[in-house]
């Protein structure tokens, strides 16, 4: 649940990037860090291994500014994608308001995407939540690579709900802001 602090007039929303390991979640958040006005964002914090794989999470606070007297903040997190880091992944989902699923379009990662989205449902269930209740967008990342699954197949497998989805090349910043904007707006509309 987004935390509305009536006393300090602040609204804080937590958005989590989810998806299989090496799918590009951290690349998304690094691109956002590099493009958002430095006055509107805080420090990018990464808790990663020596090999730059996310160990616990990446964290980037982004300020929307003041809207009708409320100061609105978005806290962006990534989870570690590798299967064996599920304990940390679950912790990051605590209090999540919005989700961006970063799918890896490569043919050899097709099953990993399905496993990851199923794992998302399992982990949310532990917090007594369903993914349908939380604003979600999907980015089909790595569309610039040659060995990729068709969009139709990805949609069939990963997007039965028909949520917002787009193609992405996170390394070039393509399709990075669209899902973020979509989810952020839905999170705010849920406050209504």
């Amino acid at each position, binding site marked *: 649940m987004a*935390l509305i602090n009536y006393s300090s007039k602040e609204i804080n929303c937590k958005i989590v990037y989810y998806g299989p390991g090496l799918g590009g979640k951290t690349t998304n958040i690094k691109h956002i860090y590099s493009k958002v006005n430095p006055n509107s964002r805080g420090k990018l914090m990464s808790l990663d291994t020596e090999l730059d794989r996310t160990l616990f999470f990446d964290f980037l606070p982004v300020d929307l500014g003041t809207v009708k007297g409320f100061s609105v903040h978005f806290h962006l997190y990534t989870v570690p994608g590798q299967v064996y880091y599920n304990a*940390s992944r679950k912790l990051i989902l605590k209090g*999540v308001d919005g989700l961006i699923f970063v799918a890896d379009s490569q043919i050899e990662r097709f099953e990993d995407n399905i496993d990851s989205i199923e794992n998302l449902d399992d982990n949310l269930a532990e917090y007594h939540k369903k993914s349908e209740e939380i604003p979600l967008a999907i980015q089909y990342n790595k569309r610039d690579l040659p060995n990729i699954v068709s969009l139709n197949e990805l949609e069939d497998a990963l997007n039965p709900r028909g949520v917002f989805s787009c193609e992405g090349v996170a390394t070039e910043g393509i399709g990075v802001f669209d899902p973020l*904007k979509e989810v952020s707006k839905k999170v*705010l509309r849920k406050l209504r």
Partner: protein
Amino acid sequence: MPEDKEATFEREFQTIKDSLEDLCRETKSLSVLLIDKAGQLITSAGNVSNIDIPSFATLSAADFAATSNLADLIGEHDFSTLFHQGARKSIYVSLIADKVILAVIFTKETTLGLVRIKVKKTAERLGSMFEKIFKTLESEYSGAVDDEFISEAETELDSLFE
């Protein structure tokens, strides 16, 4: 949020803030931060100007969550407090009413024993109030903002993430 409830909420919130100020002063601590379990700052007391608050709040919540899971692995329900000792500054972290995380940052000006006792007293005093506040927050959650807010926020989002 109806005005009378908002007033009640504000009053309780002020009591919490005052308690944190008291705790900070009585323990001669540098600062006291109250953080929710999702890693968002609720309020603070003392000097926090030199702290990167979003990072501190996030890491405190993650620290607590990770430690709770460690407790679980050895058959404990929870570790209700954490203590990180540094050469100059230390952090004492405690869970209040199973809902919020209270972090006290202190130097050698004070002792861990004093911090521990005062935190325990503050937690006892504020526990039931937190229950009430969280209930109010949940019940007043829908309808917190209006259409005009959404429209303005969406325009801001479009320009921030263009």
